[in-house]
């Protein structure tokens, strides 16, 4: 069922308050929206990371839904096991199928969890894998990941990251996933409907959500949603979906805002705006433009 208004989502909370997320945490906003949309019955799997640590300090849990954490690099493998096991238990009349939803950070998805993720998608398990992307290892104190954008300062890239961000969506499209999409929590209707859509499709589906992190990106916590919006409106984080290999841009940004509007409000990019680093800023812009034009080509070549 389509989500058309917020009242459609109210009362479906999967996460309780009282967890230990930082003020203004973008990840928990994203996760709340995913769970508000998800259709029961489902089971959530999380790898080690911010989300796991802020939600389950024994004897407490913020999860109002069945949830499991095993380790950092294996969420997709754990999900594979649950999904396959429930299939046979239902067949034998001693259990029932649930949709298995992985909710993982960028470290557990782009880096250490990539092998397990690849295996699960190649085998075609019926799971929804959601990556909340805060673009670094925030739980251990802001270290660079493959999802960290170029130019960003982290504690392991004190002079700014030189490499571009890994294109996780293309990797999963390359696995033949029937549905891969990006989303932003400021576009709650788009995000929640993508969760519904991804959940309704049989097979491994993937949702890549931008999750601004006030602590790790060095911005004021009240700006989290603004940051997500700016990332989209500057074309830094395009909102699109790939259904059976067909690309569709959901928010066609015809008049992009200057990337500086996004960079300026976060201290992780502070040095990028200094006159002596103009070349690095140009490289950042080239990265954004190349990705956008590539996306336009894909959407044009494979119209939905």
């Amino acid at each position: 069922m389509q989500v058309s208004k917020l009242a459609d989502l109210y009362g479906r909370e999967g996460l309780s308050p009282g967890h230990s997320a930082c003020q203004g945490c973008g990840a928990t906003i994203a996760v709340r929206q995913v769970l508000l949309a998800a259709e029961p019955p489902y089971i959530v799997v999380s790898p080690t990371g911010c989300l796991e640590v802020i939600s389950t300090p024994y004897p407490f849990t913020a999860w109002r839904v069945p949830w499991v954490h095993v380790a950092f690099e294996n969420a997709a493998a754990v999900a594979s096991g649950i999904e396959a096991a429930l299939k046979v238990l239902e067949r034998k009349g001693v259990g029932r199928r649930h949709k298995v939803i992985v909710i993982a950070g960028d470290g557990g998805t782009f880096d250490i969890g990539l092998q397990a993720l690849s295996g699960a998608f190649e085998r075609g398990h019926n799971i929804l894998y959601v990556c909340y992307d805060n673009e670094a290892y925030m739980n251990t104190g802001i270290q660079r990941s493959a999802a960290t954008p170029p130019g960003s300062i982290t504690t392991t890239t004190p002079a700014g990251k030189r490499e571009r961000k890994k294109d996780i969506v293309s990797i999963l499209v390359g696995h033949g996933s029937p549905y891969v999409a990006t989303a932003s929590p400021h576009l709650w209707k788009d995000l929640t409907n993508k969760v519904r859509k991804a959940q309704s499709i049989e097979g491994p589906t993937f949702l890549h959500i931008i999750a601004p992190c006030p602590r790790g990106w060095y911005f004021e916590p009240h700006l989290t949603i603004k940051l997500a919006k700016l990332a989209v409106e500057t074309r830094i984080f395009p909102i699109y979906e790939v259904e059976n290999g067909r690309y569709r841009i959901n928010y066609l940004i015809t008049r992009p805002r200057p990337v500086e509007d996004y960079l300026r409000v976060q201290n992780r990019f502070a040095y990028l705006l200094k006159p002596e680093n103009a070349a690095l800023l140009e490289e950042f812009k080239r990265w954004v433009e190349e990705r956008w034009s590539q996306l336009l080509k894909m959407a044009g070549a494979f119209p939905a």
Partner: protein
Amino acid sequence: MYSLSSYRLMTGNEAAAFAVKQADVDFISAYPITPQTIIVERLSEYVSSGELDAEFVPVESEHSALSACIGASLAGARVFTSTSSQGLALMHEILYIASGMRCPIVMAVANRALSAPLNIHGDHSDIMGSRDAGWVLVFCENPQEVYDYTIQAFRLAEHPDILLPVAVNLDGFTVSHSSEPVSILEDGVVRSYLPRRERPRLDFEEPASFGVFALPTHYFEFKVEQEKALRRAGEVLEEVSAAYPNRAGRLVKLSKFNEDGRIAIICLGGTAGTVRHVLKHYDMKDFSLISLKLFSPFPAEGLLDALNEAEGVVVMDRATSPGAPLPPLASNVAASLYEAGARLPLMSVVYGLGGREPTLKMIVEMLEKARERMIRGGPGVSRMYLGYGGG
């Protein structure tokens, strides 16, 4: 009365797979590695032909195999996996999590040497490297024991007072690839020996959080409780094995041969068969053999009973503990003796690394050396590498 349906010629690997099929396992996940591969090949065939109604998930690594097993176990399934050597080493992180999350997974380990240098042949380095992971560790001497112990492992693992994973160890090649006639139970008999038991599981109607983290306020208690459960497995094993329909196949903590021998040879796995043969056919009356079937929890009490009249012990380890005073089995035996205040002469023998199988001649040489050292030497610890240096 147990129902003995027939004998089948099976290797250790085939016996493991056959037992798993009869145990009506729901979920198997594994990755190929020599010498356990045949176990999962057979299981794939059983699943594919419909003889076993289970999901077989052929994952991309052993790390994912055990991770998937944890997921399946927490979903309520009866779960099996198997591995060897590097595969077990790759699982290492997850071994501790399987026991810490109290998942009753049964895993066959066809024991094999660890790299480097790479070597596919048998020794116990793999499982001894994981001995503190909190699993029940069972060792098999032959395919018959592999079959019987695998079935009993499920009942022990799933016992509501235990809820711990069990590793069933079989020597790479010597047991995993050797055929012998195996006495098997009827399917129905195994089914009724292994009823399904409820345990906490992932379900939307009863939402619980599994794998939460514990601060210093709780972590210590969890780990001590887990250790207590592992110790309890020694007691529960008696109940589990007493109920096993084939009396001859009951999983005992240890078996003894030549009760009256003054010097006890203690070993794990297939080597016991070789030693028994030597004692029997070479007229070695002054030696007894203790074949340990349970390594963890270590059956110290049973071992001390068995050593009651002994004047010396020879402990055979098919693994080393570089830098440690003694290799793993000798270390456990020495600690057990110390606890009992017994200061027996102990000869620690390291043998068989990387598949250098102990021959009859080697065993005889070991026994002669033991006799010489213990009878003439007096108390203390002595060491030898059996078959080292040109074999």
